[in-house]
């Protein structure tokens, strides 16, 4: 078993407009990208659960040309709202960094 950060080249999050957070996981090779996808670690339902939101609200995109998977979700509070703690949405990716991936 591995943590996602051990097999990814980059895991990051950022605003996509003030009402949406988008997160990218980019792998260093197509082989690793395929392997992690096959393991089911990045299934939409699982990641929605990780962030405590409905599966229908967690959008998932595969970008094989970049060996990347993207997740986008609505923000709990808009960027800059009084209750917001992350104006540019740069630190939402932590749960992904520590995600368990069933590969050797």
């Amino acid at each position, binding site marked *: 078993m591995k943590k996602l950060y051990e097999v990814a080249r980059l895991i990051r999050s*950022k*605003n*996509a*407009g*003030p*009402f*949406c957070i*988008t997160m*990218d996981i*980019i792998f260093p090779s197509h082989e690793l990208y395929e392997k992690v996808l096959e393991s089911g670690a990045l299934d939409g339902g699982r990641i929605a659960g990780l962030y405590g939101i409905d599966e229908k609200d967690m*959008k998932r*995109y595969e*970008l094989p*040309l*970049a*060996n*990347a998977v*993207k997740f*986008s979700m*609505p923000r709990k509070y*808009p*960027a*800059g*709202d*009084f*209750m917001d*703690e992350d104006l540019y949405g740069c630190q939402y990716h932590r749960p992904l960094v520590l995600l368990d991936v069933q590969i050797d």
Partner: protein
Amino acid sequence: MSRKAVKRDLTLMIRAGLERGIPVIVGSAGTAGADPNVDWMIGIVKEIAKENDFHFRLGEIKTEITKEQLKQYMEEGRFHALEGAPDFSEKDMDTLTRCISVIGAEPYNAALDGGAQVIIAGRSTDTAIYACVPIRYGFDNAFAWHAAKTIECGTLATVFEKKHGAMLASVRKDSASIWPGHPDMAASPVSVVSHTLYENANPYILTEPGGILHTKDSVYTAENERVTRITGSTMEKKPYTVKLEGVKFEGYRRVALAGVSDPLILKQLYSWLETVVEHSRAKIRRGLGLAPDEYRLRYVVYGNPDDPCTERVGVMFDIIARNEEDAGSIITNVWHTMLHVPIPEWEGGQSQTAFPFSPPDLQTQEGGKTYSFCLNHVVEVQDPLETCRIRYYDL
């Protein structure tokens, strides 16, 4: 950015542009692109022209729209919410401080047609300032927009961002080529395709005012070790819509930052903080006559107080009040209360927090004035220029 830094950068760009006959285009002036931001930058450009004896036609594009315009769009059924937009209708109009329209490429080309050599524009899509160039030369196609999307953040779309700088693109009927200006840097198929991920919810759909750029079938090939060619992208023309951004005024903000290190407080940090809030609110009601619903108060904890390895956590108290004076009084009450709320493990007078400076509270810019986004809407327009105002200054 400071006026000095903006003036320095603009001087370099304007000098080089005038010497070579290349138009200089600035979009989303002053970051937000509201009318005061544009005025600020126009003032800087005029000063640069005077000091350097530059003579040229300056184009100004303002994109702020009035409440009357917005009301009219609503009445005509041309105002539409995007997915996840906050509710906003005519009854919310009084809370709206400012509303700007996010223009596309057409206003830039109108200003260039008007002879502008330098353009300072209000809010626009990041891509429009680049896409307007190929469109002007007859390449109103998917590759103009795909190239623009790729180079909009400069060298972020390179393999390794050795230095931050500009990117170059050439646009053709059926393709675009992308490469960085720096000779030791490279744009690879992977680095270019990866940029479709950046600050974009869906990497295959990029919405612009005049339509949607589809990148699902895009093909990225290396022309050489520094240049990547994009083919296969398509543009789906849509009825022209202009996005709106709007803010409402929330009040005056003030914050206090403190460190907490005592292990006996850390083990009960959150209940202790709730006591701080409770005592503060009581004092604020007593001393300032303000009920809890007359201001907003929150705290954010930095660090994990339950981890025995934690030597210190940060606590930020953050308040918003209806006026600047109340904001100052409220935060002083809060940090002074926090300093002395006792824990039962100790007897006698206690001082609980490490403040990193004096006085221990801070104001954000402009007296702490705070705004929040209240629009995520578009308006349908017949004419791409209808939400903007263009004028010229012959310097």
